[in-house]
């Protein structure tokens, strides 16, 4: 197995990294290229950029961000948010992204996963799953998608997903630790790599998640501070996690 991965997540809107409470009151916290490069220097294994506005206007801005990141960052990165077609995804990969991530659009039309896998290759297709109490949520977790999380994960795999990015809505932002039970159920149900997300408060939480998943997404635990990634890596090494 490749080494466990640490993946800082940057929320972007209109070409800037933003931070907000429940998608409102967005605050500008920096330039995606500068922050991405700093995380890369701090030892990030990959990066994830999520376009949280994901409107028609931000689509172009997202491709521009991907293009600028590719010029300055030499580690892999994923772009998600508002991707509804093979054309949307292709524009991001051609700009230099390595993977794209789809969520609500795949729930609305699961064939999209097959189309993306056929055109871009399985390894480029991440399906993001927001889960709460074993059920899938859609539309930035505001709606019940009427699907069981494990069943949806299996369907994603069968349709050609290359990776699952699983966010526990119950835990997201709590810093109480990842939903290890849900992650273990997914590990047993699919043979795809799983990226754990939601709930990281300390190094022990991240180490526990990496026992049952292949990667950990790091959002609020880093506070947009690349220096925190460096100390977190040291703490994880002390806990015996084999990092790059």
């Amino acid at each position: 197995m490749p080494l466990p991965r640490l993946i800082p997540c940057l929320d972007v809107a209109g070409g800037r990294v933003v931070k907000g409470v429940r998608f409102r009151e967005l605050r500008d916290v920096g330039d995606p290229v500068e922050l991405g490069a700093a995380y890369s220097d701090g030892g990030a294994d990959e990066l994830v950029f999520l376009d949280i506005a994901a409107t028609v206007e931000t689509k172009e801005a997202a491709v521009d961000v991907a293009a600028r990141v590719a010029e300055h960052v030499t580690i892999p990165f994923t772009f998600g948010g508002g991707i509804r077609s093979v054309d949307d995804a292709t524009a991001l990969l051609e700009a230099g992204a390595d993977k794209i991530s789809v969520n609500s659009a795949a729930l609305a039309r699961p064939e999209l996963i097959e189309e993306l896998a056929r055109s871009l290759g399985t390894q480029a297709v991440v399906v993001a799953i927001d889960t709460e109490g074993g059920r899938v949520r859609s539309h930035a977790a505001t709606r019940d998608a009427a699907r069981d999380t494990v069943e949806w994960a299996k369907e994603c795999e069968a349709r050609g997903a290359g990776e699952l990015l699983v966010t526990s809505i119950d835990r997201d932002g709590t810093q109480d630790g990842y939903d290890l039970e849900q992650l273990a159920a997914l590990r047993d149900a699919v043979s795809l790599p799983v990226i754990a997300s939601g709930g990281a408060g300390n190094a022990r939480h991240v180490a526990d998640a990496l026992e049952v998943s292949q990667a950990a997404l790091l959002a609020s635990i880093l506070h947009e501070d690349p220096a925190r990634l460096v100390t977190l890596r040291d703490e994880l090494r002390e806990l015996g996690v084999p990092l790059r």
Partner: protein
Amino acid sequence: MTTVAIARYGAGNVRSVELAVRRLGAEVVDDLEAADLAILPGVGSARSAMDGLGDAADVLRVRHAEGRAILGICLGLQLALDESEEDGGVAGLGLVPGRAVRLESERVPRIGWATVDPGGEAYWFAHSYEAVTDATVATSEGHAAIVESGAFTGVQFHPEKSGAAGLRFLDRCLSRA
């Protein structure tokens, strides 16, 4: 200045490769025949890549016969083999004896940083198929990582996405070309 031409076949993350070789001071040119180094990048599926290569396939075969440097990356390595079992079986370029087979690994696709031996350096991988060939000169967790045959070098990992270690690897390819 070393000149590099990148084989384009529709799919593939060509831009990242282009940016990486430019960063190392090489000049990117269009002429696949004349460039000091030809790069066969790789993202996507074997069949669409072979279809998309078109005339470039023969240019690469001639280059190889003349002993001029080619670097195959990821799918680009697999395309250089005799055949791939992907997409129900696809004939490759036949530059390197061997075939690409479905990866047998705990998690497929195999995604992430893994050590390559000899050398002990970690590079980033993202693949569902692997090369089986006697031309393998370095492995990663038992999978072919670097393949060499004549002036062809193939890597299963993505040097253009492997940070400083990847750039050092590409730099060595450029200086040998």
